């Protein structure tokens, strides 16, 4: 399959870019941030995302979604990276939707997938526990209790967890990992909103003797690892797409600056020192793009069971976006350091996306292990 978007995918990209630049440009993020919005994310916008078919992009049509694949989810994620729009898309439309599509019971799917697709419900996947993404070291426990389980542990970096209508919690059960659908209002669930550096939101969640019924299990007891990994890999590939969108947008803004800013009586874009750095960055961004679409296509084709193409994409896109935002601030000079200019916002968003679902080091390590060294 050619490593470029199909006609339909290009139309989706144009729709997503058009919708976001009209309805949720960077001013939208600034508005939420500067007004200290109670949620930090717009439910109205999420609803509109549902109407556009973006929220349920990977949800099957029989559950009200668009029935599309990873490439299309990546297209939406990249568009979100360009406008820095806070959206439950990652937590709900990608991670939680993927868990439910792959492993949810008919009841669970019927209860939640149509509402995610419509942009009515926000779900959050609670995986991380420490400061770094280490899904193999999940310590939250699920002990059998009554007709179900009792959950104990602490989660962090739970995307939009403070406004979630339901949580999907990954916990260690007797012989493996198990995923649970948890009502955030259940006794013993304590949620703290954490406003992040990029003015997007996450939550720290403490679970103290949280009692859930047996039918809260998503997938099978002790069988959560593969289910989780499938969702994480889609999430990682989408995060990589978003990194590419953010990195490229910061680059485009910088190119415009190079074409208009004058010093020494010349446009600064005439200086070879800046031309070469820009050309290098362009090249890196193209590589990231290729890695991302390659990973997304392989996910759709079921050709990346170990998630290695995904790891390459996340590592590469992360490092490249990091370079893009460093160069953006540096080439803008003093104004790049101001809150008024947007490039600093890209720097902050890229830092968060880099950390999300494993940074470049995590994914390079994974690749090294898989290659047998």
């Amino acid at each position: 399959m050619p490593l470029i978007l199909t006609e339909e995918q290009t139309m989706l990209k144009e729709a997503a870019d058009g919708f976001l630049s009209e309805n949720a440009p960077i001013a939208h993020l600034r508005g939420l941030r500067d007004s200290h919005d109670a949620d930090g994310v717009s439910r109205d916008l999420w609803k509109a995302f549902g109407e556009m078919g973006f929220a349920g992009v990977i949800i099957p049509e029989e559950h009200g979604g668009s029935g599309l694949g990873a490439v299309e989810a990546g297209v939406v994620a990249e568009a979100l990276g360009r406008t820095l729009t806070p959206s439950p898309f990652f937590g709900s439309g990608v991670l939680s939707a993927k868990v439910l599509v792959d492993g949810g019971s008919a009841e669970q799917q019927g209860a939640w997938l149509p509402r995610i697709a419509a942009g009515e419900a926000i779900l959050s996947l609670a995986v991380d526990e420490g400061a770094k993404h280490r899904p193999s070291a999940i310590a939250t426990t699920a002990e059998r209790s009554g007709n179900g389980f009792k959950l104990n542990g602490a989660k962090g970096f739970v995307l939009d967890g403070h406004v979630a209508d339901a949580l999907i919690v990954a916990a260690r059960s007797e012989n493996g990992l198990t995923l649970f659908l948890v009502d955030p209002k259940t006794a013993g669930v304590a949620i703290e909103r954490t406003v992040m550096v990029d003015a997007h939101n996450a939550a720290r969640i403490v679970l103290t003797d949280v009692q859930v019924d047996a039918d809260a299990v998503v997938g099978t007891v002790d069988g959560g690892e593969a289910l989780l990994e499938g969702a994480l890999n889609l999430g990682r590939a989408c995060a990589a797409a978003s990194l590419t969108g953010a990195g490229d947008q910061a680059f485009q803004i910088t190119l415009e600056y190079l074409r208009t800013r004058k010093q020494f009586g010349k446009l600064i874009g005439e200086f070879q020192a800046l031309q070469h750095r820009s050309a290098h960055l362009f090249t890196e961004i193209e590589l990231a793009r290729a890695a991302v679409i390659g990973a997304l296509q392989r996910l759709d084709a079921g050709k990346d069971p170990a998630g290695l193409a995904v790891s390459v994409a996340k590592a590469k896109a992360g490092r490249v976006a990091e370079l893009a935002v460093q160069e953006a601030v540096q080439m803008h000079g003093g104004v790049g350091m101001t809150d008024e200019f947007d490039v600093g916002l890209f720097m902050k968003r890229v830092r968060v996306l880099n950390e999300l679902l494993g940074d470049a080091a995590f994914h390079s390590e994974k690749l090294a292990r898989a290659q047998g060294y």
Partner: protein
Amino acid sequence: MTDLDAFRAETRAWLEANCPPEVRGPLDSDEDRVWGGRNATFKTPAHKVWMDRMGARGWTAPEWPKEYGGGGLSREEAKVLASEMRRIDAQMPLSSFGIWMLGPALLQFGTEEQKKRFLPEIVRGEIRWCQGYSEPGAGSDLAGVQTRAVDEGDHWIVNGQKVWTSYADKADWIFCLVRTDPDAPKHLGISFVLFDMTTPGVSTKPIVLISGKSPFCETFFDDVRVEKENLVGTLNRGWDVAKALLAHERTMIGGMGMIGGGRPMGQVAGDSVGVDADGRLDDPMLRARIAELEVDLMAFQLSMERVGDQVKAKQVSPAIASMLKYYGSELNKRRHELAMAAGGSDTLEWESDRSHKGGAARDWLRTKANSIEGGTSEIQLNIIAKHLLQLPGA
């Protein structure tokens, strides 16, 4: 089963039956490549068999039209062929400047007669070509070539000197930039001509490089007769042909580091560096650098494929070749630096049989030319800034 699946099955069966065991597995050294030509040398007889079989099928140039000896495959079929060859670790049957550089330019600019005459013998590896581009006074500023072609009616008489002519001493024919109008602006007085290296007046002198090898020559033309029928494209507009060809050359050089396969570098490094109890390379810093390189190699592999798809879909400027050339050559240099670090003092032996006579070291040194030949990295960055980024004054 789709047509592509059927093609894959047939291809796999054919390769199984026709790819000799001797040509499977990575090359020990760049020296083992098959280049074809009138004076072809082969590491083993099986290497000739492999070239001949693939050439007869047109699979040395899979996407060229069948009428010119090519494989006539679609891009998707060619990808299948490449992946099936990788699957069995098949070596490239034929390395050829004719296939990588001249052929695509002839397909674009050549007359029907030229295509019929030159392309099939390129596909079969019968004629080996070299490239007469750089001159002592025209390196990065290639359009400054001074080799002069004087019009003598039905032919030209060519005088001048080329340099860095890869394998000129082993090549049968040359594609060459000559100045046909010394009074025109420099880009508008150049023509692209072809001639036989055995023509009287042609001589070559190999240049010894830091690797101890001599892949490049100085090439001298002393009253060399060139027939007018061997002009490619329009008189005095050879720069257009030259540029198109350079795009192919750059794509080729960019891809040089990607040929091979075999064990991942991190595993190979384990042979010399050792591994810890968990099977990790026993040098965490080197291991991290190798893993980082592998990420870039895989991303670059996809990028090459993607650029091909973009070119096919006419979504991108030909200047995109500069991106592949720049990144690929820098990546290949990095790869060989790491290979030397991984091999430690074992790879420093210059003459021993243990080291294949310094094979790794000589290959490492050879890669330093990658970011110079075909236009330096700095020239590629200039081209990207000007043609792909439209930066002012570039």
